[in-house]
């Protein structure tokens, strides 16, 4: 398969970026999207190998495209490409690394951008800064227990359905697709997944009020937008995390505030 790739290039956070087009040929449909990016980079690096063109100042355009990736099996949440106008590209319930070229048409032009959201500025090319997500979790996304001194694991039974619901929320990989997709740049799905997964368990219930207040306050402080219930986040979440968690978080938040 052959493709034209329209890729966002941006040297650093301080500089302006723009699209550049590249041609790529003979890609097997079984190739993953990121392997296709590897092939593009190999092509770019090899074009820069010629020292004459480097000296002529062609170096900039032959620099490989920087993109985040790591596990390449859909669990680490590192990859973060906005492909043809969709977070993680044209397939459902996957991260970019699980996308395969068989999902595209031969000869297609593919537009590749970084996440674009005020809360996640571009660092270089397709790499964005997601430190804000860590900061929200640091504000309260945990159960305050120390190592040791905890009861036997079977002391508190947890209804199976509740544990399963908690697990659904806990499967968030923290990629940021929900935020990149939201027209308001809201982090509600991300935050609510953590709030909900802990609030659903008896172990997490105890400090649920304190947690939700701290995390919501941090989220607001970091400049993430409000939720206007468009549910776009849920559509693009690679782990199909439901917006019902946002409803649960709102309820938790309201209850917590009422007690203040």
């Amino acid at each position, binding site marked *: 398969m052959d493709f034209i790739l329209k890729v966002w290039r941006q040297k650093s956070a301080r500089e302006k970026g723009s699209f550049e087009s590249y041609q790529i040929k003979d890609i097997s449909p079984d190739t993953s999207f990121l392997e296709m990016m590897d092939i593009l980079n190999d092509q770019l690096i090899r074009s820069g190998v010629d020292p004459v063109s480097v000296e002529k100042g062609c170096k900039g355009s032959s620099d490989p495209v920087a993109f985040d990736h790591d596990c390449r*099996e859909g669990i680490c949440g590192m990859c973060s490409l906005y492909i043809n106008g969709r977070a993680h590209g044209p397939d459902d319930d996957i991260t970019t690394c699980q996308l395969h070229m068989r999902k595209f048409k031969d000869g297609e032009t593919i537009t590749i951008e970084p996440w674009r959201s005020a809360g996640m500025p571009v660092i270089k090319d397709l790499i964005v800064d997601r430190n804000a997500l860590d900061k929200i979790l640091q504000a309260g996304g945990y*159960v305050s227990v120390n190592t040791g001194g905890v009861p036997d694991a079977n002391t508190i039974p947890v209804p199976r359905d509740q544990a399963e619901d908690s*697990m659904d929320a806990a499967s968030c990989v923290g990629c940021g697709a929900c935020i990149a997709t939201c027209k308001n740049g809201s982090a509600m799905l991300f935050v609510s997944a953590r709030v909900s997964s802990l609030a659903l368990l008896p172990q997490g219930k105890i400090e649920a009020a304190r947690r939700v207040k701290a995390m919501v306050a941090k989220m607001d402080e970091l400049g993430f937008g409000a939720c206007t219930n468009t549910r776009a986040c849920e559509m693009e979440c690679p782990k199909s995390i439901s917006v019902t968690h946002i409803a649960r978080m709102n309820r938790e938040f309201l209850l917590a505030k009422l007690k203040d």
Partner: protein
Amino acid sequence: MSEKLNSKIPEGPLSEKWTKHKTQIRVVSPANKLKLDIIVVGTGLGGASAAAALGELGYNVKVFCISDSPRRAHSIAAQGGINAAKNYPNDNDSVYRLFYDTIKGGDYRSREGNVYRLAEVSNNIIDLCVAQGVPFAREYGGLLDNRSFGGSQVSRTFYARGQTGQQLLLGAYAALNRQINLGSVQSYNRREMLDVVLIDGEAKGIIVRNLVTGEIERYGAHAVVIATGGYGNVFFLSTNAMNSNGSSIWQCYKKGAFFGNPSFAQIHPTCIPVHGEQQSKLTLMSESLRNDGRIWVPKRKEDVEKLRSKKILASQIPEEDRDYYLERRYPAFGNLVPRDVASRAAKERCDAGYGVNETGLAVFLDFKSSIARLGKGVIEERYGNLFQMYEKITDVNPYEEPMMIYPAIHYTMGGLWVDYNLQTTITGLYSIGEANFSDHGGNRLGASALMQGLADGYFILPYTIGDYLAQKIQSPKTDINHPAFDEAEKAVKEKIAKLFSVKGSNPVDYFHKKLGHIMWDYVGMARDEIGLQGAIEKIAALKEEFWKDVYVPGDAGELNQEIEKALRVADFIEMGELMARDALLRKESCGGHFREEMQTEDGETKRDDENFMYVSCWEYAGENKTDIIHKETLQYEFVKIASRNYKD
């Protein structure tokens, strides 16, 4: 034996060693802990849990990770579960049985004392994780559920769907976040450790590269903990994440830390087969699938041919024409034999010409009988995410057609040599989790890596490092302007400059792939003398070629993923050579290390306990000098050594 190789295993009965040791090691008072700094490198299960636990105790902790967040560490990808000797299913499990299975699974090449302690603290891990809000799978009565894993006849594996590593890591990451919020831990993301700094022979700091700005930074402490995982990416294609690398342990090695059993690498039997040269990584299908999946190839070569030319589907081959070869060869354990045994059995069938895909390197993992017995719903509940993952990659629906699988590099049992306190041969330098060599011998059992990472991080290191730090309460903060830091920083900068200056004609990946082929062909699932000797020569030649012909674009002072890779691959090449040397010297078969010359008549591993019952501990001798081997003899006081038998 080198005098540095004192394993410090406490005297006394197995079950009292750790208890006794804890009473004898020193502790640091709360006020003094505030004065002591600890660097933790890596944020997987080992690093995150250690950093959190040390922060809780009151130490000043600095934790480093190469990704944008600690949560990305590759522990997150562990699927199947975590072992513990809870005996909740009432199937006669015990600390001793978990200990025994681990020693036997490791083919009698690990330390009794360490492994017993691991089994002993396993239960505390489950208790803690539940308290942290890890949503483990539960029965309808609300209690925790268990499943079975290879190498064991009891059900002792706790799990959270096929995402157990993710959930445990999120638990440790949350505990870490809590400490970051409380101010006891400082977190440094997108930083890669490039050297360890020694002052008067003691580990006192690290040199890192800031991966965003390219700046070289210095950090000092009273002790350094290496928790950077394994080096399976030496093979290029592995189930490891793309950024997982061995550079931090390799730098420690070059500064004098001994390297234990470098050749012990685990090949996982159930991975999605390789599809082509452009492939960047291999995806694991959890061992837990072997609970309900049956592994087979056709009995008849005609069927193999038809499968390869896509004239028939696997589901069309009748029962009587299928060879469930694991059930045939190992009746007692069946599909749940340990990983090394299952991997070799798959290779044996494929080498005999029964591989079921175009490349001839695949076998089936079939859920037909389980779906018939339990219903599709139950299978979906247990493995839904894995089935989805499989379908996304291969475009085949595993509910209808069996999965195709083949072994791939997954884990490295070898790593930095550590004593019972998890201290390396460098004073003040500790190593935990996959980065050390300690608990798995020649083969790690499934669901034991998570157990070891968390055991080391939560429950062992926080005690043992105190014994060392108790002597340091009078020591001032480490001065990062000390000449040792200047020297280390200079060396790192020179190495980076040298890589840029080569200006050769091939990108880094070209060399990495070449190394991977050498390693897989000669230092992989089956090894022999001639192949290993050839590999050592080939790797030496590759090293030369790399330093003459690599091309690293861009500059050092910016985000530059090519220089990151170049630094790692330069180290991988050297590690590959050491692995081959170690494999060559160990002229026996044990666990994942299979020497063709040493096998029984029916193709099983043949150990040589008389000559090789030791840990090979390598010492760096200097650039272009042959590394020196020392031996830590393994003593088995409590377990009766036997040849591993999974047949009856």
